[in-house]
């Protein structure tokens, strides 16, 4: 009988340590801001840097069946006295090629996506060299995705990651790092 008790205690301690380690890692990710879903996304702009870094381009992006529609873009500029200006930059930042939207940014530029849907649930998904963004968009609730553009020029595809109907897999566009 005693052999049972020993193994059970060992198991309990080992599991306690593992659970504590994983939860601790997760918690540190939240408070340090390295966790994309907590720090730079999701409801009520939780964790999005305040104030936004100088030069941040804000894209107002609508998800429809089945396309991403970047509707507007502004860029944050701070005057020497600290006043924040939002400069309209839609014509410089948003373009379409072959019917797909391209968001033009420069290397390392801070980007905030304000994401919303006019119909069904979508998800904004982009794989960047320094980590992915993966944020669901529920109709009626704004979601946010904040990230820095990659340092290497090129096109980085963003997709819809939540099944949204038969055109789901053709719902994509590009982050164009100039």
């Amino acid at each position: 009988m005693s052999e049972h008790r020993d193994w059970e205690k060992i198991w309990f301690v080992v599991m306690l340590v593992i659970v504590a380690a994983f939860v601790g890692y997760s918690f540190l990710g939240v408070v340090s801001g390295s966790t994309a879903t907590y720090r730079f996304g999701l409801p009520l702009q939780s964790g999005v840097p305040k104030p936004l870094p100088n030069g941040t381009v804000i894209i107002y992006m609508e998800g429809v069946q089945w396309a991403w529609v970047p509707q507007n873009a502004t860029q944050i500029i701070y005057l020497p006295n600290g006043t924040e200006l939002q400069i309209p930059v839609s014509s410089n930042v948003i373009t379409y090629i072959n019917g797909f939207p391209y968001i033009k940014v420069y290397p390392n530029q801070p980007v905030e996506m304000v994401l919303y849907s006019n119909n069904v649930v979508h998800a904004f998904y982009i794989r960047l060299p320094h980590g992915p963004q993966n944020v669901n968009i529920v109709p009626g609730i704004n979601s946010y995705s904040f990230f820095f553009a990659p340092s290497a020029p090129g096109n980085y595809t963003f997709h819809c990651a939540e099944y949204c109907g038969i055109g789901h897999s053709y719902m994509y566009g590009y982050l164009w790092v100039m």
Partner: protein
Amino acid sequence: MKAYPRTTLGVALLYTAGGLAWLAAMGIAALWFRTILLSPHVNQAAGYAIAPLYYFLVTFHGQAAMMMIVEDISLSIFAFSLYKSNMSAQHFKLLTLSFFLINLPMIVTFAGGPTTGWYMYPPLSLQLGSWLYFGSFPAAIASKLVGLAYFMMFLNAIGTILASITLFVDGYKTRPREGKIPVFAAYGMAFGGALIFITEFALAAGELWYVLYFWASVPVNPLTWVVLFWFWGHPVVYYAPFAVFGGLYYYIPKFAGRALYSEKWARYNIVLLFTFSMLAWVHHLQTWPLPTVLRAFITPTTLILAAGSGLTVLNLGLTIATGKGYQWKNPIGLSALIALIGFILAGLQALILPINPLNVIVHNTYYVVGHFHLMIWTIIVVGYVSILLDMLASKMNGASLSSLGAGMVSGGVIMWTIGALLLGYTMSIAGYEGLIRRWVAYPVKFLSYMDWMTMFAMIMGASFVMYGLPVLLTLLGVKTSAFWETSGITGVSSTGGGPGVMASGTENRSVDHVNKPN
């Protein structure tokens, strides 16, 4: 097998038949959409042309699995666990009615051509255009028909609730007068019974809400509906594997030649698994706009649940390790062992999922698809095979598998598991690389992954036929003499030291027909 059984074993066999019938249909759907996925459909016109069929097959595949097969086999295991524990079902009319409520109404749903995905999120699933056939009618009629389709799904959920409550009450009434309920039946009571009838109400409520949307214009709030849905949508994945755990606690000690290492912990674990399986539901929604505190809550709850699963592995692993040499050559013993090993290998994939910084990397990708399919293919399917073989031996009045039967089952299960591991891990690697689930069109760089996935799926399809044939024919009572023998031992025997004990053909529950170890 009888369509109106009046024995506990008959109930188990009836639910088995339902599960296997839908399993065959959903498997064919899977192979069909796997062939569709052999093309990346970079041409949009071609992609849009095939997409409705693809998404219907995907939806059918998922809904047949989650709303019928899982329930059928969980209830089947539950009934059989009662049979093996000298307990019994009593309300056979009710259980038969429930069986048909679970398995028939959704034929109407599928006839409507849903392309909603099995978790049918609103508002997509409220769009008439998501229904290929019902949606093609004028809007006034289409909305009535789609409402009817959801009502049929509601009936399916009611059937499940009815069956699980009935078996639970019957089990309770026929529990041993002295001592505890045996572990196998206790797991059946908890996970084939109580867990189902508590959480299935969430699905029934979600479906009824949809019905009311179409029939009475009741508005649906997407976020509320989704949170409600996952209160069923997550625990449902445990109905079968945790019921199978009960089977493993029963069979593995027999084939290891010793008592279960720690029955006390097997019983404690019921409480832990039961509670935390319901507290982990929102871990499917970590990328959703939900309060941070709620998303943080599910990290420890999911990990504690994983620790409970690990406790099962430890308990059974120590039983094998300290036993008298495991009889893995017996198909029942082999299947139980493979189920346990497969559960460990599939469980490893899950470790990163409740961790918030890591979940975002793989959420909605094939990584998750690979994980849960590998779980299904090992702990559920192979674990169920071990229980089913004993069930069939009981049906055959204690006969043992012939060398042909044992060879087909053992060979099939081994081949199946190899294919499953290759396919599950290939899926997960592709998902980690960025392959999103439910894409009928995908970047060409994933084409070779898709080719290999289809190849591995075909291995699994072939092996399913190999071990499924003796099972199916035995259920139907066709050519059973080829797969079973009632005297003497040839090749691999289920009975070990001699012929199986001949049961009376009715409810002989007190003997282990096929499981006596050497």
